[in-house]
């Protein structure tokens, strides 16, 4: 429980920045995500006669992570349905916290991308930066890369959060502050984000693209620090964690280069959700393969 509330604290900088960047729209989305996730968990547990465990904070984290992983254009009902799906299908059906196969927030996000693909667009610039460029909607850095082949946005803008994107991914600085807190407190398995980021940096350098662009672009940092490190859906042992992270990094980069998309229906440029969920499937294997030998 201490860890759950620690995670909420770590997400506070990114959440506050989202509120600053998107004002009331962000507040409504975050409240909807958290309330829907908590309500879905409580209702499911009540209906199935299980002990209601919403006070452990895990459902609230799922709701918050999901709301930070959606575009500001998302209708509230789409987020509410996706949060409920993530909690029920991603967590409760398999028996609740600790028994889930997939990260519930990401399972909800995959559902959101699949069921409500139109609701993501348009990507909007944060309110404080709209006047400077005299526009509201803009391409995300990864969309710009897909369209022009250039890593065009300034790295400083990506670092500070002057770019369009999902609520929680726009400011790398805020995510790094939260991540530093998590690592300092020992709440995350640091080998996982370290191997994800190392893989991304190496692959982008080999491909001749700016590694820092790929490091700060998309939901890599949000996913790497806050979702891939979920203790219930990540490997327990160090070598397994490194393999898990490398796998995530490789899938992310493959999707950034080649994409998994259907023109006109699904046009995603980011693969963090798919990468982490895919590697979640291998966690039982990695746990058995890399279990340290008993002395």
């Amino acid at each position, binding site marked *: 429980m201490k860890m759950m509330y620690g995670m909420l604290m770590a997400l506070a900088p990114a959440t506050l920045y989202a509120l600053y960047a998107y004002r009331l729209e962000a507040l409504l989305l975050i409240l909807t995500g958290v309330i829907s996730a908590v309500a879905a968990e409580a209702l499911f547990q009540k209906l199935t006669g299980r002990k209601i465990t919403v006070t452990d904070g895990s459902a609230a984290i799922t709701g918050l992570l999901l709301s930070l992983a959606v575009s500001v254009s998302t209708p509230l009902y789409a987020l509410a349905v996706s949060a409920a799906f993530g909690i029920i*299908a991603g967590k409760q059906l398999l028996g609740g916290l600790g028994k889930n*196969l997939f990260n519930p927030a990401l*399972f909800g996000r*995959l*559902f959101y*991308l699949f069921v*409500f693909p139109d609701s993501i667009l348009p990507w909007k610039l944060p309110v404080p930066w709209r006047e400077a460029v005299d526009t509201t909607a803009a391409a995300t850095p990864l969309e710009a890369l897909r369209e022009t082949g250039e890593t065009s946005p300034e790295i400083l803008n990506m670092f500070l959060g002057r770019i369009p994107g999902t609520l929680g991914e726009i400011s790398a600085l805020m995510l790094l502050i939260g991540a530093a807190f998590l690592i300092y407190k020992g709440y995350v398995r640091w080998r996982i984000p370290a191997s994800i980021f190392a893989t991304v940096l190496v692959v982008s350098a080999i491909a001749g693209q700016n590694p820092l662009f790929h490091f700060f672009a998309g939901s890599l940092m949000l996913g790497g620090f806050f979702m891939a490190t979920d203790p219930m859906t990540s490997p327990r042992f160090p070598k397994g964690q490194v393999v898990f992270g490398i796998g995530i990094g490789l899938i992310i980069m493959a999707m950034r280069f080649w994409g*998994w998309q259907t023109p*006109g229906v699904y046009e995603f440029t980011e693969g963090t959700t798919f990468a982490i*969920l895919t590697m979640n499937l291998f966690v039982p294997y990695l746990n058995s393969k890399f279990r340290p030998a008993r002395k």
Partner: protein
Amino acid sequence: MIVDSIIRLTSVVAVILIVALGWSRIGAARLKKKGVEESKAKSEAKKSATKYSLIAAFLYMVAMVSVAGLFM
């Protein structure tokens, strides 16, 4: 757009239900053949059916996102 979303939502739920129901029956029958007690076989099969139905839902959504254009 709403109709498309409802169709997609229904299709995911259908995949989960079909795999869960199918696997729980097949799994229970296989376990019973191996000599496992009926109530235990049913509960074991139900657990694995839930797990495989969610994996099927994941694969279905990823497959549709990546190859949906072939059918539209």
